[in-house]
Structures are given as structure tokens and as C-alpha cells.
């Protein structure tokens, strides 16, 4: 009997990554943002409590995560070049990186020179989603701010590659455009980049749109079943790419997807700045569905027959 799509994806993942899941946590620096994006809780017109953490507050949040076992952190913020500046990020990186094994950023894009500075002071990865490869839809949901420029955003990804970032994260927001049209575009983009930047390690995230302060109706919702199929197809198309899954998804689905193709997972996340030590004070980016503690997520991974990997770099 021909193995199912899910079996094939499962075997391809194990062959490449073994029975392991890399653990990471997002650390939200700021929810201030100059972009107007219809789907995002941080969108400029939204009336939420805005906050940018002081460097001390960032370090306190980081220490909380380190105490929980995390050595891989992802710094996240809205787009605000004055509040979340290059200097702010380099200062945080210089203090934080020696305590970690891996530090990535998901903040406003930078030019190549700035990325180079970030690489030099210890940033390992840049996450920069195109959100959608459908230009029409891109235009309709990105109404104001620098993010409006579709081509510029694509170019920033290459700037990060040229600056020799070790990891570069690509992604789309599932739900914005029909996924059967989006996935081939995403895969083709990844393949083009892999040829050109053959030393860069690419990862892919596929966040599904969730309710947020923007009250945005998801134009093309993706069901759980379709989501599982998407992960499997992606794994078979790009066997060497790390696939990241956030706590936007429910525990039962997360436990299922790790057997299909996911290789990296967050746990115990908060999506508001300062949320680990002072939850629910500032506005959050989106609602979460997996509220288990990192230890509980790790236990579920172990139970599924996988090793949670807390440290995977130097």
C-alpha cells in the first residue's frame, strides 16, 4: 500500500531531524507600531495600551524564560524605528546573547548594513514574513506605514541573507489568501533563496490568523485538516527546512503536527510586551490557544516519543 501523505512527511522529518523538537520562546519588546495592517493587534489605529520595554525590563523577562529552561529566544516587536531602534537591539543583544544559545529577531526590517551589525553583535536569525504572496491582497490588508511596500519587504529578506544571518525565517499568514495558491509561491520563494544564499538556513512559520484587537474577518480560513495537509506538503517539498509552530494552535493539534513535520515549537508564550512578569497589562498581538507551561509542553513532546531540545547552538 502506498504510504499516506502524513506518513511520508513523518518519515522525511525523522530522517532529517530525528525524533527531536527544538524549543524556543518569543519575547515581546514592544507593541508600538507605525504600520496599519488590518489583521494585526498592534496595528497603528488600534486603541490598546502601548508599551516598549526598557532594557532592564527585557532582561528581566529573558531571565524568567531562561529560568524555565529556554536557551533559544525570539525577540518580537511592532515596527517602530525610533522605539525599537538598531541601538536598542544591539544593546539588548550584547547583554543577552552570552546567556543564550540562539537569539533571533522578528522586528521591523533593516537594511543590509544594520543586519550586519546585528549579526556581529550576536543575532543568529531574522524572521520576516511576507504575510501573503498575493499582491492584491497584500495591498488590501497593508493600508499604511512602510510595510505597504511589497517588493521592499521581499528585498529585506535578501538583505538579511547577504548580512550572513545564520537563520532566516519565511512565512505567510494562513487565512489571508487561498492556501492552495499561496503554498507554491512560498515554496518557490524558499527554493530561489536557497540557491542564491546557499549558506543560509531557512525556517518557515505558518501562523493561522487569529482574532485580535483589529476585529478582522479572516478572508480564507484554514481548517485543522487543511493545516495538517499544508505542513505535510511543505515538508515533502522542502525536506531540509525547519518548520515552526507557535502557541496560536491548540494543544491537541500541536501534538499531532509534531509528528507530521514541525521541528520547532514555542511554549508558555505571551504576546504582550512584559507579559511574562506582568501579564495582561499591555495590549497583545493575538490570542493564544495553548496555555500549557513549557514543562507541560515538553512532557507532551516526550510522551509523543520525541526529545525536546532546549539548546542547539553555542
Amino acid at each position, binding site marked *: 500500500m502506498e504510504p499516506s501523505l502524513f506518513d511520508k512527511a513523518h518519515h522525511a522529518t*525523522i*530522517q*532529517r*531531524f*530525528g*525524533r*527531536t523538537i527544538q524549543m524556543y520562546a518569543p519575547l515581546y519588546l514592544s507593541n508600538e507600531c507605525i504600520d496599519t495592517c488590518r489583521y494585526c493587534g498592534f496595528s497603528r489605529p488600534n486603541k490598546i495600551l502601548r508599551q516598549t520595554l526598557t532594557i532592564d525590563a527585557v532582561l528581566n523577562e529573558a531571565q524568567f524564560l531562561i529560568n524555565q*529552561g529556554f*536557551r533559544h529566544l525570539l525577540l518580537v516587536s511592532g515596527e517602530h524605528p525610533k522605539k525599537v531602534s538598531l541601538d536598542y537591539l544591539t544593546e539588548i543583544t550584547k547583554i543577552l546573547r552570552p546567556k543564550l*544559545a540562539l537569539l533571533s529577531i522578528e522586528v521591523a526590517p533593516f537594511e543590509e548594513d544594520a543586519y550586519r551589525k546585528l549579526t556581529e553583535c550576536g543575532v543568529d536569525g531574522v524572521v520576516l514574513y511576507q504575510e501573503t504572496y498575493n499582491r492584491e491582497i497584500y495591498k488590501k490588508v497593508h493600508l499604511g506605514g512602510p510595510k505597504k511596500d511589497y517588493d521592499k519587504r521581499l528585498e529585506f529578506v535578501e538583505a538579511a541573507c547577504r548580512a550572513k544571518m*545564520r537563520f532566516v525565517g519565511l512565512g505567510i499568514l494562513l487565512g489571508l489568501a487561498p492556501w492552495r495558491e499561496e503554498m507554491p509561491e512560498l515554496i518557490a520563494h524558499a527554493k530561489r533563496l*536557497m540557491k542564491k544564499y*546557499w*549558506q*543560509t*538556513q531557512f525556517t518557515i512559520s505558518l501562523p493561522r490568523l487569529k482574532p485580535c484587537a483589529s476585529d478582522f474577518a479572516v478572508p480564507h480560513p484554514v481548517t485543522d485538516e487543511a493545516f495538517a495537509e499544508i505542513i505535510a506538503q511543505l515538508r515533502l517539498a522542502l525536506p*531540509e527546512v525547519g518548520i515552526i509552530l507557535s502557541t496560536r494552535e491548540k494543544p491537541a493539534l500541536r501534538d499531532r503536527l509534531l509528528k507530521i513535520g514541525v521541528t520547532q515549537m514555542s511554549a508558555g508564550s505571551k504576546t504582550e510586551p512584559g507579559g511574562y512578569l506582568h501579564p495582561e497589562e499591555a495590549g497583545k498581538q493575538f490570542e493564544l490557544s495553548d496555555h500549557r507551561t513549557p514543562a507541560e509542553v515538553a512532557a507532551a513532546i*516526550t510522551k509523543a*516519543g*520525541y*526529545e525536546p*531540545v*532546549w*539548546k*542547539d*547552538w*553555542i
Partner: protein
Amino acid sequence: MVTESISSVPSPAGDILKIGNQTFHSRLLMGTGKFASFSIMKRALEASHAEMVTVALRRVDISRHEKDILQFIDPKKYWLLPNTSGAKNATEALRIARLAKEAGIGNWVKLEVIPDPRYLLPDGAETLKAAEVLVKEGFTVLPYIQADPILAKQLEEVGCATVMPLGSWIGSARGLKTKDALEIIIEQAQVPVVVDAGLGVPSHAAAAMEIGADAVLVNTAIATAEDPVKMAEAFKLGVEAGRTAFLAGRVEEKMWGEASSPLKGIL
């Protein structure tokens, strides 16, 4: 230099492998990545009878104490070989090797310099550069390389303890795709040749030993098997069969058939 053995596991006719200042009875080296848990890894190591075990320093977190991978590898039973997995160039490899030494994991290093995250192929030029520095700093260096006979000789000349050419791409389970080049490396080597990477089943390991490799290193094929412990044992047997066959001296391949009980001169 004092030569000491770390195990008394029986092996074909006292056949001993000497690498650097250490001797080994087992010719199967094991990697420790990709296992579903450290306890399964530990049992697979036991079943393999390996005496040398490589660990990615990137995975080691000494601050985690009881949950760290090193807690599952008994240093009395296994000779620990930290590797520089993740290093993309000589500078990163040097940094990792020195960190391992500082952390007290010893001064042996499996040198991996891999700039390409897709096929995970080693960079010969950077490997040679790093090897030269590490040897001078007193490390015992075991470099992972393409099956490149010239590079193998160059690494030998700068003082590496072995060369570790690939059979095929890491994790590919494709077997000895580089066999012809491996034979040249084995023929010319004055240091042990360890075939590393790409061995998918015990017959691949046996084939490497039959052509005269001194040892093999296996990880993915064992760690990702349905039953890693059983597969570890199978590789142990494969390596022993291949080694014993090599020592026994194989018959030549011929173009014609030849009867097992020849009838000569009776008529």
C-alpha cells in the same frame, strides 16, 4: 605516550584500533543526535558496544545538570569525542573546540566544518585550516571530510589522528557512494580511516570494513530506526563481520566461474 585501553569487550583475535594515544576494541563509533530520548540513546550505545561516542557541543548544556546529554554517557565506558557540528567555517570550529576543552570535555575533537545546510557537505579548505591550528594547540583531531584523497593526505601531514571521509551525505543512508575514492584514501593512509556518514544499514558498514576502513561512525541509521537498540546491535555485528572478513583476506573477483571442488587431472 602511554597507550591505555578503556574497555575489555572481546574482538576478533585481539584486533586493536589505535587512534591518537588511545586504543579501542570496537570499530563502531557512534553519534548521539536524533534519538527520541537520552535513555533510548543510552541503551543503543550499550547495544552497539561502541567505545567512542561523538557529541555535538551545541547540544551540551552543562548548566542543566541532570537533564544534559552528557549525564547519559558514562565517561568510564565511552571515550568522548566532542564535535563541532554547526560550525560553518574554521573560526567557528575553533571556537567550539576551545569551548569543549574549557568545559572539561577533553581535547579530542571531531572536526566538522559545514557551510551548506542542505546536503551538509564539509568544506575541505576551512577544515584543513582549522585542523592545523587545533593540532598545534594540542588537540587530537579527527576531521570529517569529503572522500578526497589529496585532502586526506594533507590532513595527515598537519597531524590529524584520523581522517573521516564520507560514504555518502550525512543522514542519507545511501551507503558507500564514494567507494572508489575511499579505496584510494585507505590505500594511501598512514592514519586510521574512519568512514563517517551515509551508512544506512549494517551491510554498508560491513562493506566499508571489507575494503579496509579502520572503523565506521554511525548515527542516523541507528537513531531513526524503528528500534534503535536492535539496529545498534545489528551495526555492531555488521562491523565485526566486515572487519573479520578483511582480516581473513577475501578471494578475488573473477570474470569466469570456478567449481568449488575442482576436478583436475583425473582424466
